[in-house]
């Protein structure tokens, strides 16, 4: 095997359990050195999944609550450090689609262990699809059945005249629902590549709650 990030050769020795087929043999995608650069999130804010010393709500999540949001109880697998920034640069911005495999197995495992009814992916715009050629989140979660319920809204259709709160929300809401799918009593998981401010995910969650979702949680590779 060759490390997918630095191309050095990796020696692979399956453990005893793997040799006898007791657990699945999953060859490493990364060498030890590259793997060690990525830091898991060990203890996090129970609202947004950011690494901190305790599980109490961080300042940002308290603000979301004040705005009347139901918290997403977001989980991220890794901290958004230099190694993750470099990974995202190569995968998403340089468009090296093959790198989606690096964290794929881990993400699938995580989703499979959650009590949910539907996984909805954060969409990308038509323009990004025509240039990047892939939805980076769909790539990361390849193998999970994803719903494409959400679409990015076409631009230049802002209704400036509405001044109430709902109107303002409509203006900043980047997504729209592509098909009318009743979500009554459904537990929905939203997936994205990186959790940054939470804006994107909370906008998406608004639409899902409007469709009747029972609850909406979220998961991303990095935070």
């Amino acid at each position, binding site marked *: 095997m060759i490390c997918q990030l630095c191309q050095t050769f990796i020696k692979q020795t399956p453990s005893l359990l793997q040799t006898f087929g007791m657990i699945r043999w999953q060859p490493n995608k990364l060498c030890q050195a590259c793997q060690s650069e990525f830091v898991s999130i060990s203890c996090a804010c129970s609202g947004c999944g950011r690494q901190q010393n305790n599980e109490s709500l961080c300042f940002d999540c308290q603000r979301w609550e004040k705005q009347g949001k139901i918290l997403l109880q977001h989980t991220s697998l890794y901290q958004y450090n230099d190694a993750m920034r470099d990974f995202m640069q190569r995968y998403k911005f*340089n*468009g*090296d*689609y*093959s790198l989606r495999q690096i964290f794929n197995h881990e993400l699938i495992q995580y989703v499979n262990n959650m009590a949910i009814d539907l996984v909805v992916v954060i969409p990308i715009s038509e*323009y990004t699809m*025509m*240039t990047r*050629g*892939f*939805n980076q989140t*769909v790539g990361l979660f390849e193998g999970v059945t994803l719903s494409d319920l959400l679409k990015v809204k076409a631009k230049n259709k802002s209704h400036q005249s509405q001044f109430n709160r709902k109107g303002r929300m409509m203006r900043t809401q980047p997504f729209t629902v592509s098909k009318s799918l009743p979500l009554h009593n459904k537990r929905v998981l939203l997936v994205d590549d990186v959790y940054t401010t939470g804006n994107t995910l909370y906008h998406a969650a608004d639409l899902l709650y409007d469709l009747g979702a029972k609850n909406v949680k979220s998961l991303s590779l990095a935070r």
Partner: protein
Amino acid sequence: MEEYYGRQLVQPKIKNVPAYVSVAATFNNHICQRCGQTDIEKLPNYHFYCRACLALGRVSSRDVLLSLPEPNLFDGHDILSWSGKLTAKQQEVSNELIATLKEKNEHLVWAVTGAGKTEMLFPVIHKALTQRYRVGIVSPRVDVIIELAPRLQAAFSKTDMVVLHGEQTQDYRYTPLVLATTHQMLRFKSAFDLLIVDEVDSFPYAGDKMLSYAVQQAKKATGTLIFLTATPTKQLQKRVRRGSLKTSYLPLRYHQHLLPVIKTTLVGNWRRKIPKQLVKQLTHFQRTEQRFLIFVPKVADLKKVYDQINKHVPHLKGDYVHAADSRRQEKVQAMRDYQLQYLVTTTILERGVTFPGIDVLILGADDTTFSENALVQIAGRVGRKNDRPTGLVRAYVQHISLNVVAAQRQIKQMNHRGKKLGGRK
């Protein structure tokens, strides 16, 4: 418009293309039209991209290649502002290169380390520029480009020049003179009337199909290609012997002294215990304040050897450096500025970088990482100063190594030729 002259630039199909630019497909039969390779990786929706040339920005089936023919819109009023003098032998080689330019041919310059090959190039570059030719000088190694840039700009101070490589962000401009890493040639198409490839035998150019394709594509079909090296690969040597590659030899250094030979010392397992012969040598360096490099086979050896030196010869001030070292340029500069007496290093400093007047030690020279040519290059770091044209090159080995013997023989052969030209010890 200028930015497309002799270039091939990637752009998504969905973006607007200026009317005057010619548009080409990015793939033909799954062959990448930028780099000529078939290292295809899939994208969703039956699209795909090229992994071979990904480092220069992705080429995918959702893109097109934009270019315009090279029109040579230069004034040709170029002045050679270099006022040095070539030796008789340098002059001879220089004349041969000017002849090659006329014949629009391929040519190899086989010149020993420290022969002054850059200066030898100035007349042919000047000749090309005054004919409104576009001239490219490339090397696989970014260190070589960084060191060459100020010298070239000084020699052609009135000529507009752009320097292109991955470790900087100078914007591309349309210029008659281009200094770049070989990778950058992937962005050019039929641009250069004269293209010079320095250190043609070095990594990653040697044996890399994509880079030799890039160089061939970047020059015009009628262009002249000049290769430079002190240590040609077996392949190049074969072409020389068969007579399919015109060659100029320069077996003597510009200061007319012969190359330093590699001396060997047999030692025990140096990874377990620092050899006493080495400690003795280092103590001598400490006393004489002689500056030096220590080459080791592996990155993992660097710190260990450095720590051992500090333990046994504590007052020597040095550092260690390797290819992926984020402070590499900084450490090399500190050595240049005489803030350090020595560097422990891997083969990355085997060429391109010159510290005048240094000595060189090679610890574990029998390790396979030191090829014959690498050892010749390392030995070539020594004796590069007019007032210290010789110096010490000592290889510490546990076993007699064929590569060391071959390197010693290669240096001897060059010195044999050099002596005939009047070379001194």
